[in-house]
């Protein structure tokens, strides 16, 4: 799951190394449109629909927080 998410993030913003960063939002690695792209891809790849109310910057700050988010929304 970790690798898959890293691959998705790298496709959206290939210029960053997501594995070695701890706060994507603080570091300016993801903006609001990137998050929209990310949610759309995660929904499709994991066959889920991330709750709109969970689309908050803090849930996209690291690979760990993204894993927690998609698990909360039903990803296996």
């Amino acid at each position, binding site marked *: 799951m970790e690798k898959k998410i890293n691959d998705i993030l790298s496709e*959206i913003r290939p210029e960053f190394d997501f594995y070695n960063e701890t706060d994507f939002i603080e570091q*300016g690695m993801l*903006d*609001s*449109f990137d998050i*929209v*792209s990310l*949610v*759309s891809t995660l929904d499709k790849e994991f066959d889920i*629909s991330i*709750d*709109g*109310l969970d*689309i*908050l*910057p803090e849930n996209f700050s690291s690979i760990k927080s993204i894993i927690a988010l998609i698990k909360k929304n039903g990803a296996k």
Partner: protein
Amino acid sequence: MDLIFRNKKITGLLTILPKNEIKFEDEIDNYNFTKAQSLKLKKIMGYGSHRIVESGVTISDLCIYGLNYLFNQELLKKDTIDAIVLVTQSPDYILPPTSNVIQGKLGLKKEMICLDINQGCAGYEVGLFQSFMLLDQPNINKVILLNADVLSQRVSKRDRSNNPLIGDAASITIVEKSEIENTIFANIKMNGSGYDTVIIPAGGFKTPSSSTTAEMIEDPEGNFRSLDHLFTNGDKIFNFVLREVPPMIESLLEKANITKNDVDYFMFHQPNKFTLNKLADKLQISREKIPSTILEFFGNSNGVSVPTSISFNLGERLTKESLLICLAGFGVGLTCASLLLKMEYLTFTEIIYF
């Protein structure tokens, strides 16, 4: 706040769209995206083409064109109009009210009410509420509800949050008393503490337009806009919509003692496809029941997006059928409003081009 209206109906609906069509691809170079990012966003957000008026065209031009079309087609008679309710955020003048301008230019009777309302994304619902209330007067039998905006003129071409989606349009809805008893359930909620979530900061009396307010400034996401331009805090408005709209719809249906399955269509304001899909999922309503095509074909025209969606997606069906429709608007204010009504056997539902 829950509202109830009795014995009112919509009898006709006309949407007026500019002929001038701009495709998303034509403006890609304005934004600081790679082409691949732009095309991906196009798909997710539902960007396509948007309809923009030519320079100098105002809302009164669109409304007068539409009303003259109805007079010429004998779908509406001038002397039957008892009130004009105009909902807009882009009036011809700060004063007088643009509804008076329209009344004067069309030579309508003087024994009537003209009323401008400053509302945006929930403007169709708010306009209907006001029209229903006017119809409680014994001397008012027919209200012409006009929704119109040409806000593209206040959107920066280099603002990727607003420019790809903004659309200009007008609609004319004929609202009358119903001989058949009916009940229209509705609700509305306002949160003025979020007034700056969707705002044009300059140009009013608080901050008059000047050379300073016209200066283009780059925001952290690389958009260029001035204080004279429309600003939307996308994250905040998205969160507001997902937090407020689902419970509002659930409450409306409960008050009306209706299930989601009983509703034929949920005609919602059209901010973008992503938001509408998330709303559908949250409400557990099939995405087909919440049409999200207006942004792709015409752009988001604020309060006109709901009547445009009705005209485009249901069109002539409404002249032959009876459909139970839930309308909802949400956005600037912050405001969210919804209502549940039967739309049936309308005299006309058309789209014309200016």
